[in-house]
């Protein structure tokens, strides 16, 4: 399945420009959408999920024109969506919640619905606690219920918005592995501001800032954009001054080791370092701010 986005714009109340001419081509597999808070990621996700109407531009999802009301309804049949703030009905158990959402997704046959719910509870490792009320679940468990509900209709398009926010490291790793497993034969769109989540799951990504796409391509392309721009320097304590962004500060026995991003080495004894995705993202955002 292909998603084609052309010059997509979204304005709230005719005033706030949330998306400014976003164009992307997204194919099957995991695709990351990275950007700072307020970049327009959630707006883009909501438009793709058929919640919001775009103000302008074209959007085709698997051959469906998703800018029309009929198209949005058609997309909802092939969609699984995990919102950033997934609320639950606290008095329902996970099994009941999934059964309820399955009904609203059109899974009317009781036996088939119960089988699907049971399978997904097993997939997200919640079978043992499936009949406990959701009010007793931890944040990570609720996220797993969230991904289970998104998969109820075996969607061809899975959109997950900030799925690992607020999870502890172990839950985050578990969730990332689950998402990677799901990416095989469907489009999985992962929106996040956590660079590590993208680094561990996606081969292709787009970076959004202020409602615009400032990068789209492979992970390697983004990483190589910061080649020769990342430096390691050790000082007796003073931070490197000048036109640099400090990525990391590590205390040593006799000073501090700094990892910085900048055009030129911050000191004569600075050594170049191989960039990782976080360095490249900072380099990209820095360029956006200073207009490099």
């Amino acid at each position, binding site marked *: 399945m292909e998603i084609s986005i052309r010059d997509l714009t979204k304005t709230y109340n005719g005033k706030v420009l949330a998306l400014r001419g976003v164009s992307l081509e997204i194919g099957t597999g995991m695709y990351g959408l990275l950007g700072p808070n307020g970049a327009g990621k959630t707006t883009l996700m909501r438009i793709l*999920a*058929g*919640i919001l109407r775009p103000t302008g531009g074209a959007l085709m999802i698997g051959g469906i024109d998703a800018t029309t009301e009929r198209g949005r309804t058609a997309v909802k049949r092939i969609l699984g969506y995990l*919102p950033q703030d997934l609320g639950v009905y606290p008095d*329902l158990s996970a099994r*009941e919640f999934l059964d309820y959402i399955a*009904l*609203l*997704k059109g899974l009317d046959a009781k036996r088939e619905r119960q089988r699907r719910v049971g399978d997904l509870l097993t997939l997200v490792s919640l079978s043992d606690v499936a009949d406990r009320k959701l009010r007793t679940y931890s944040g990570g468990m609720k996220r797993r219920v969230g991904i289970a509900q998104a998969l109820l209709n075996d969607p061809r398009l899975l959109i997950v918005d900030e799925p690992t926010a607020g999870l502890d490291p172990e839950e985050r790793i578990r969730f990332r592995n689950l998402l990677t497993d799901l990416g095989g034969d469907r489009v999985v769109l992962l929106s996040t501001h956590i660079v590590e989540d993208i680094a561990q799951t996606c081969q292709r990504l787009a970076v959004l800032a202020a409602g615009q796409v400032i990068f789209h391509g492979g992970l390697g392309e983004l990483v190589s954009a910061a080649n020769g721009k990342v430096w390691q320097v050790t000082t007796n304590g003073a931070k490197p001054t000048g036109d640099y962004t400090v990525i990391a500060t590590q205390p040593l026995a006799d000073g501090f080791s700094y990892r910085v991003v900048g055009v030129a080495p911050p000191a004569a004894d600075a050594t170049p370092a191989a960039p990782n995705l976080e360095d490249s993202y900072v380099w990209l955002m820095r360029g956006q701010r200073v207009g490099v």
Partner: protein
Amino acid sequence: MATIFTRLRYELRIIGWLNLLVPVFAVVGFVALVVLVAWDDLHNGVANASVNADNIRYLRRLPEYMLPLAGSIVASALTLADPVCELHLTLPRAYRATAVRRMGVLTLWLAVLGVAIVEVIRLFGFWHLPWVFPQDQLTWAAPTLALVALGASLALLLRNRAASSAILGVVWIGEILFGGFLQQYDATKYTYLFLSSEVPSAGYWLGNRLALMGVAVVLLAMMWALLGRNEALLGNES
């Protein structure tokens, strides 16, 4: 058919026991006050016949006064606070249909309470109103439908619990305090909420009840339209 019942059962669960008990608490509280007033009157030497007449009048007000208020507050709260709203908006079955179905389940519960209250009052021989079943059920049904629809519409329009509750309170108290004034004019007497309790002999009683149900239909249509504004539901639109 089984699917419809399953969905209704879930909507009942989602409304929650506490919300369902709000009208029951309101009724119990009202009855407790009536008992307290009667007890106080008897201990202060008020004649027994007079105490009975007062209590009967108070009790007859119960379904028309308390059910609409309690129902509208619950409707407002339910409409405003759906924690799964964003997810609902991505589902093939439209959220507006789900929300209206939920209001329907609440109204059904209020109807059960309304019929039960009227029948209990009748059982004790206190229902001295001139209408018979099912017409007599309009005493509570018409104002309840109107205020439930108003509560839900206000919640969707204002997106603020305090503001919508305040307006509901003003409407309810205003109708009590200015009932005499409202009945003087054609424009307002047909939407006076408490006509059965205050002027049961009014010639325009049925017209008033039908007008209130008409108001409910209009507000329901407004609610339907407001439920289609996804941006407002998600709080992206002021």
